[in-house]
């Protein structure tokens, strides 16, 4: 009996030690989030492209962090860390995509309720259903102007003193968006109707704005996006598009590789079909508009000179 008690006491001490360790670990996580600069609003963008637009509109009155900003990782496989929860908990404004793409943000927001926080969801701003099959909304040319306007409205409500400043920043962003739309229109005037193949629906909204025809079955693109094996029939269809040179370019998701995409890239190279990398999150060193322009330039280079662009620089 006494022995039993002693043993229980020891295990109790061990549990207490374990809890203390866990506490230290949690404190470590908490400390790893850098402080917000004084006089600025904490803003979180779920993806680096939304963080960039928020920074462009908010200017010097916002401190923006991006949750998903590793251009080498597949965003669909993202898992949240405690530091993300800390960032979201103290944020006054959160910008996210929605459409099931960044559901982890909803979970984190529900776990850290804050009446002072405003949330901009691109899918809701655009009035789309959350079940929309292709969630890569930021590739649509109408998306960011609408999201930027929603960000501006929320920032003006949070900091009415800087209302005029935010409005001016939004106007400047809209000018850049106008230039992007002009670029897209010029591309479409020249290349509308050209056929391309893709591995994923990542850039599909941009491709249709550019007037390009995506010859890849959507089922195949969705299967690759969702990490399940595409049907052999669909693989055969896409392979014959490349080997038969029935498309002008193969557009691959730069952040996702699987045996299927590797095989397709190899086939495209063998058939001298140029390969263009489309990024799923904004690569480092770009703004949203420069990123989109670089992608369009890369596609144009592929269509005119047959050159591949495997990385944006």
């Amino acid at each position, binding site marked *: 009996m006494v022995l039993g008690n002693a043993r229980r006491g020891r295990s109790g001490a061990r549990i207490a030690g374990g809890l203390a360790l866990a506490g230290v670990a949690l404190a470590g996580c908490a400390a790893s989030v850098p402080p917000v600069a004084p006089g600025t609003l904490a803003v979180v963008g779920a993806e680096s492209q939304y963080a960039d637009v928020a920074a462009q509109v908010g200017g010097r009155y916002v401190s923006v962090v991006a949750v998903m900003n590793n251009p080498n990782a*597949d965003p669909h*496989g*993202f898992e949240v860390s405690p530091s993300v929860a800390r960032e979201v908990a103290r944020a006054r404004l959160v910008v996210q995509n929605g459409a099931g793409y960044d559901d982890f943000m909803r979970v984190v927001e529900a776990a850290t309720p804050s009446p002072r926080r405003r949330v901009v969801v691109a899918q809701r701003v655009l009035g789309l259903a959350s079940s929309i099959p292709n969630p890569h909304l930021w590739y649509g040319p109408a998306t960011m102007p609408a999201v930027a306007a929603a960000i501006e409205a929320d920032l003006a409500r949070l900091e009415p003193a800087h209302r005029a400043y935010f409005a001016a920043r939004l106007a400047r962003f809209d000018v850049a968006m106008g230039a992007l739309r002009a670029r897209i229109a010029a591309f479409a005037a020249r290349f509308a109707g050209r056929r391309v193949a893709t591995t994923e629906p990542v850039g599909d909204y941009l491709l249709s704005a550019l007037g390009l025809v995506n010859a890849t079955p959507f089922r195949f693109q969705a299967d*690759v996006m969702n*990490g399940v*094996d595409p*049907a052999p*029939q669909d693989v055969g269809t896409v392979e014959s598009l490349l080997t038969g040179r029935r498309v002008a370019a193969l557009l691959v998701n730069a952040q996702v590789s699987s*045996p299927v995409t590797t095989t397709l890239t190899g086939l495209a190279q063998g058939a001298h079909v140029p390969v263009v990398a489309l990024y799923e999150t904004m690569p480092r060193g770009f703004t949203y508009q420069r990123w989109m322009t670089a992608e369009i330039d890369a596609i144009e280079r592929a269509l005119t000179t047959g050159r591949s662009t495997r990385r944006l620089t």
Partner: protein
Amino acid sequence: MHWLVEPGFWSNPVVGPALILGAVVAAVSAAVGVVVVVRGQSFAGHALTDVAMAGGAGASLVGATPLVGFLLAGIVGGASIEAAGAERVRDRDVATGVVLGGAAGLTALLLYFVSSSTSATGSTQSVLFGSVFTVSPSVVPLGVAVAAATLATLFGVRRPLLLSSLSPELAAARGVRPRVVSLVFVVVLAASVALSALVIGAILSTALLVGPASAALRVSRGLVGATVGAIVAGVAAVELGIVASYDSFYWSAAHRSVPVSACVVAVVLVEVAASAGWSRWRRGRG
């Protein structure tokens, strides 16, 4: 053949390698499986699949061919179960369970790293459940070579192996060293698990290992007959599974195919059920 195979089957670029690799893998799994069932090592076989899983996840993390990862991890894991040296069945059971749990945990960690830091996608799906249609054709020669080496080794040690499985005392009297035999066999087992992990995934490779073998052992009398029967049943299961998976594209208007692994396991289950029914019917008559 039109009643069985939907159009485009033979000309499809991914079907050919799948059929070849599938047949080879099924033959090895079935032959090894007969010994596994006779030795009562189904659980150890399953543990090796979990170890192989960790290896496959590690391979996709460093960008290597999954087969190499499956193989290395399986051999290391199998040797460590063997080296734990559990003589009694119960100790062996526990050692196997511990290795299994540890390997599954390691798999979870590695797959997390894969999806959060590299661009490899779908690794979870392909490591756990296999994807023979996406196996690169360049892996086929390596797979066939590993399969041939595995079968040759199994054939070479078949006598001491079966003797020590069926009658350890007699084997010892004949000068068979049981530890050496077990070690060789666990390496053979690891290789066969690694191969079938490619086709139907690490988790499901137990089905291909144990299913055809147990069905054949029920139906046939001698071990030679059982091995031949198991190979026939295993190859049939994989090839029919590939055909069914291909055909399933046309079963629904949305063209949602059923994965190969699910189709193969379904055929294996039918075979096991049929063999059980057959042996019951025969016993009823006899």
